[in-house]
């Protein structure tokens, strides 16, 4: 028997690592991957709660999150390719057109 709190704490660990990676990474692809890590962490807590309440709705929610994450990854990576075409860099510090 694993306490549900352990699953939620694991989810919190993964989520905060995603937040830290999002803030300290400078490569735009790494930043995008840390967003995926945060989505996965939240999915884990959805599944843990679904299991705790013996309900299917949490798993359905995770299914929709996966669909939206797939769409988001496709569009986001296309945007990254477009940015690389015009700016020739992947460093977010050099993509500062709105900062001048």
């Amino acid at each position, binding site marked *: 028997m694993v306490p549900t709190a352990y699953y939620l704490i694991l989810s919190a*660990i993964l989520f905060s690592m995603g*937040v830290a990676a999002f803030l*300290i990474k400078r*490569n735009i692809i*790494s930043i995008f991957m840390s967003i995926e890590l945060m989505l996965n962490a939240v999915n884990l807590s959805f599944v843990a709660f679904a299991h705790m309440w013996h*309900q299917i709705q949490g798993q359905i929610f995770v299914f929709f999150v*996966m669909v939206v994450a797939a769409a988001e990854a496709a*569009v986001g990576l*296309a945007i990254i390719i477009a940015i690389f075409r015009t700016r020739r860099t992947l460093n977010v510090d050099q993509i500062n057109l709105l900062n001048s």
Partner: protein
Amino acid sequence: MELALFLIFGGLAVLAGLNLLLQRHPIHSALSLVVVMMSLAVLYWSLGAEFLAAAQVIVYSGAIMVLFTFVIMLLNAGEEERTTGSRAAYLAGFPGAAAIFCLLTFVFLSERKALGASPLGGYLDNSVNNITEISTTLFTRLLLPFEVTSILILVAILGAVVLARKEH
């Protein structure tokens, strides 16, 4: 046995997440993320979500991460360099993430009694098995949202094609 499974794969997920955080090269981060997703798939299975475990492996580590790896190789992404602009992010990032983690852990541990414990495998209410239950809900009560997500995927594909197209 459940606790051992949780500790092994939860620890693997945390280690791979730390590796993602510390690696400088995007391809190393991507491979660590694959490890995180695979261990999460095992945890989903142990929580009785067999369909989601399969979908996690197929969709996340099979499709999304392959897309990431392709883009990393296509753009020839090298090691990221540290710049002065990231110092503020360092100062805010680690304490902020630690604060989020401490708050969430405190709440979960203080509510541990109310949250209860979970045995291995699922036992959903009135269900034959996990996939039957999911498909029944998805194709009866949630049919409209399900169809809308297919339109969303279609729009995303078209948007990706338009955005990544070479301009003449």
